[in-house]
């Protein structure tokens, strides 16, 4: 096929004519600042080299599996791993936009020392040798002076990295391992611990439930794994042969979760516990409780029954909760007579309005209908069978330091509040050096200036954050970690069906900046300190630690490498008949399969393991604890509302006074972006995070039409929202789906100046509440009262 001369000339002519017009394709016109081919400086030899790698999403703790599309060493797309049992190929906006995390313009380029005042953002770059050498020397000096116990680690990481931090502190000689995860409080775990004696998580078997009674907003749009919860919800709605699930959502605001429910019941905030007991009253009065569970696996039920039948008549409950008696009766009957049914408390991380006792009451509803450790009810996922790391070496100095009283008290999420109060004066000695690992305690503490002042009293702070977050801005030294897309990590989690899951996180590309794995940085600091600490983290890199621990899974022979979903019922059947997957082969083969498929899980759940699920001293479900909490005669009853400067109050008077000054009940609800807090703000996510309210980028406050009218406010009016703890600027959104008297605000991360992709919210609504403890030692965020005035 050749062209003759005439054709050739014709073609050349038309090309010349085109060239004269000056619009030859391939030219970059001023209107096209970005050419997608431009990053490929030299033309590829044959097409574009494309590789796909699987990993585990690190944008939130949900633990979804991801697939990365890498073209010519560029990460051009993240999608879900279809083999991963949590998400089965689906993914939420945070994960989908994560390629922007890797190339984020606000990423730190390498280690830095602060040059200006704390919070100024004025840093100068330094070398890794200098940075690590400096921390090691300071730590060594403190230890030599017998002050090792004045060092603390705020730790927001999970799994083995957190274990490394614990080993570091143990060998070095400090008791201060502080839980630094953002927007957590320990009410939900505390409630479950009181009733069931377990400290691990509880999962809700949404997929198999036929009735979901949800108290609070978090179960669908803010669950521990939003994608996993969404999948469970969708399966319960449509994917089964049995009847479609019925969902009742109880909360003051018509949230996304409530919008998807079959019935939304707006409740007076803070009365969820009363409502749960009101339902219980009706169930008991009509004899609809599950006698088998209550008699065989419960203790103290009669005491509870007495209180519930005496104090929680529907009329009284209706008055306190603002819900009609007829609704109470209808919902209670349907809940108790539909099998299986599950009651879900506000398990989301973040400030919620439910006190421990309310969470206990809600959780006990499950027990009353026999939904504890039952299909379609609540489940207790077994842990991933990691092999334990070898014992931590310790010397005399280390033992002495580690035995000092800990500021973290009983651990848990109260740690940050403890740290703050310790520095503010409760502590017996100052904290001299703070290492911040995978956390942003300032953002997590809320409350604004008080927390900043407290942190400012620590002479030396080291942050390992890959972004200049609020805490890092105030750090003296920043030794940036990789982003999750560039690093190794173990991600142990569970499915809503209670199956343990281990997701493998692995580097998708070499580090884009001069960053280092936080676990490896910690190990290097330890080696620099020397002594017992020098030998505490002896591994050459993080994968070596991972292999050591994951060998435990390999040895059990249980479970399976991720595979197509058909394997699920098959493995379960086989395992229950005593079979163990022996085809893992050698550990090296097991490991390479993990890398190839993304992880391991054990798709079997033994409903017979009562001893694992009920670990109270009695070995039973402790209804007695709930009875104590709601018995007016019990003096230790914690207050439902924590107010003002943190002084807890059980009497109504100060609350009434507060209500006069701050007329609105503050309802904070979680936004997806809050989960991606540590990953840097992603423009795509910031732009859609308030889409259901037609808001984005700026903080807003939702008011009912009646309240907005009374204050003369309309959509878009700039206002100042004030609480006893702080104030923020916001825009008004008039929303009929909100209970009058309630001001609802989204809880997202706040802004930091100087960022190119700046955070959406400007200020964070989190500064209106402060993390603090109630008299029983449980930390929480308080319900909060606010007033709203025009800016």
């Amino acid at each position, binding site marked *: *096929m050749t062209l003759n001369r005439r054709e050739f000339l014709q073609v050349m002519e*038309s090309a010349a004519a085109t060239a004269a017009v000056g619009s030859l394709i391939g030219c970059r016109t001023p209107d096209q600042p970005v050419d997608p081919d431009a990053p490929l400086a030299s033309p*590829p030899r*044959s097409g574009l080299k494309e590789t796909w790698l699987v990993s585990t999403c690190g944008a939130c703790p949900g633990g979804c599996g991801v697939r990365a599309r890498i073209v010519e060493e560029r990460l051009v797309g993240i999608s879900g791993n279809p083999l991963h049992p949590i998400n089965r190929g689906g993914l939420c906006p945070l994960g989908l936009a994560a390629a922007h995390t890797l190339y984020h313009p606000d990423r730190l380029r390498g280690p830095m020392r602060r040059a200006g005042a704390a919070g100024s953002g004025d840093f100068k770059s330094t070398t890794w040798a200098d940075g690590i050498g400096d921390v090691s020397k300071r730590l060594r000096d403190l230890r030599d002076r017998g002050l090792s116990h004045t060092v603390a680690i705020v730790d927001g990481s999970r799994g083995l990295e957190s274990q490394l931090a614990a080993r570091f502190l143990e060998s070095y000689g400090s008791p201060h391992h502080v839980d630094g995860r953002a927007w957590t409080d320990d009410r939900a775990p505390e409630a479950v611990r009181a009733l069931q004696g377990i400290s691990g998580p509880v999962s809700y078997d949404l997929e198999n439930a036929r009735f979901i009674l949800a108290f609070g907003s978090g179960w669908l749009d803010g669950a521990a794994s939003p994608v996993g919860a969404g999948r469970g919800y969708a399966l319960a709605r449509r994917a089964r042969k049995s009847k479609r699930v019925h969902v009742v959502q109880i909360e003051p605001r018509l949230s996304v979760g409530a919008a998807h429910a079959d019935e939304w019941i707006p409740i007076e905030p803070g009365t969820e516990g009363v409502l749960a007991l009101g339902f219980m009253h009706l169930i008991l009065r009509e004899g609809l409780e599950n006698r088998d569970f209550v008699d065989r696996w419960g203790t103290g039920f009669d005491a509870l029954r007495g209180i519930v039948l005496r104090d929680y008549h529907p009329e009284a409950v209706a008055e306190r909760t603002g819900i009609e008696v007829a609704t109470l009766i209808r919902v209670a009957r349907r809940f108790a007579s539909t099998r299986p049914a599950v009651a879900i408390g506000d398990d989301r991380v973040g400030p919620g309005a439910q006190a421990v006792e309310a969470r206990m009451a809600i959780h006990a509803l499950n027990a009353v209908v026999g939904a504890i450790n039952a299909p379609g009810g609540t489940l207790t996922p077994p842990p991933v069978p990691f092999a334990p790391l070898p014992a931590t070496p310790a010397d005399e100095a280390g033992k002495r330091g580690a035995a000092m009283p800990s500021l973290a008290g009983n651990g848990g999420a109260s740690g940050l509040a403890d740290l703050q109060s310790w520095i503010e004066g409760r502590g017996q000695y100052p904290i001299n050096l703070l290492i911040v690992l995978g956390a942003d305690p300032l953002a997590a503490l809320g409350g604004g200036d008080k927390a900043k002042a407290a942190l400012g009293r620590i002479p030396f702070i080291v942050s390992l954050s890959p972004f200049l977050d609020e805490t890092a801005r105030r750090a003296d030294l920043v030794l940036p970690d990789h982003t999750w897309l560039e690093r190794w990590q173990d991600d142990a989690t569970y499915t809503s069906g209670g199956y343990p899951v281990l997701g493998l996180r692995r580097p998708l590309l070499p580090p884009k900046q001069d960053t280092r794995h936080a676990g490896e940085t910690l190990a290097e600091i330890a080696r620099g300190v020397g002594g017992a600490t020098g030998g505490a983290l002896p591994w050459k890199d993080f994968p070596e630690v991972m292999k050591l621990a994951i060998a435990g899974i390999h040895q059990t022979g249980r479970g399976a490498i991720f595979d197509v979903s058909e394997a699920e019922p098959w493995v379960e059947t086989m395992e229950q008949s005593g079979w163990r997957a022996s085809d893992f082969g050698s550990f090296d083969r097991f490991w390479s399969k993990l890398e190839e498929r993304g992880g391991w899980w054990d798709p079997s759940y033994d409903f017979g393991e009562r001893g694992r699920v009920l670990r109270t001293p009695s070995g039973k479900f402790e209804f007695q604890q709930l009875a104590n909490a709601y018995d007016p005669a019990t003096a230790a009853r914690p207050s439902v509302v924590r107010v003002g400067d943190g002084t807890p109050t059980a009497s109504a008077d100060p609350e009434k006074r507060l209500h006069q000054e701050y007329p609105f009940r503050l309802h904070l609800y979680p936004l997806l972006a809050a989960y991606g807090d540590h990953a840097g703000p992603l423009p795509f996510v910031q732009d859609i995070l308030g889409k259901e309210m037609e808001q984005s980028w700026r903080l807003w406050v939702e008011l009912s039409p009646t309240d907005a009218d009374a204050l003369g406010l309309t959509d878009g009016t700039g206002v100042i929202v004030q609480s006893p703890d702080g104030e923020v600027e916001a825009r008004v959104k008039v929303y009929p789906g909100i209970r009058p008297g309630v001001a609802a605000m989204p809880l997202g991360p706040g802004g930091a100046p100087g960022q190119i992709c700046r955070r959406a919210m400007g200020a964070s609504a989190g500064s209106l509440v402060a993390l603090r403890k109630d008299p029983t030692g449980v930390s929480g965020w308080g319900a909060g009262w606010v007033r709203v005035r025009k800016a």
Partner: protein
Amino acid sequence: MAFDYLRGVRSLIPLWAILAGCGSEVHQPVGYNHDVHVNKLQIGCDNCHAGSMTGQVAGLPTVSDCADCHAEANGTSDEEKKVVEAVKANRPLVWQRLYSIPSHVFFTHRRHVQSGGIACERCHGLMKNQKRPPPAPLVALTMTDCINCHRERGVSTDCTTCHR
């Protein structure tokens, strides 16, 4: 369809050309002689343009491809000396693309050469006879050429077949 959008547009805006260089001449690092390599030595196009049969982009040879034959000088030409020097120094030869596809066009060689059985000459002209690297494409392709060929062969002319 009432409006033949293809014809209509072409008569309105005759701007379509699929060639590169923005009108300026393309200079190659070496005065490569296609005639010697293809006609005399019978080396196939895909030896150096690895993707020309099965890839999206035909691609350009790397210096290691040249090294297969030119680790030592085979002849006496000055141009070959440049190649041998580059091979010995393992210095890349930066070939310039003659053709490029605008980013809103989806084109693969695999589809046209392997599946469609179209000869290279149809779009690239008689490259095999060239004794010097041409400063511009021998055949200047316009969208009209694409459409004509698609029509001739009964291939879809939907916008979405090629545009992206």
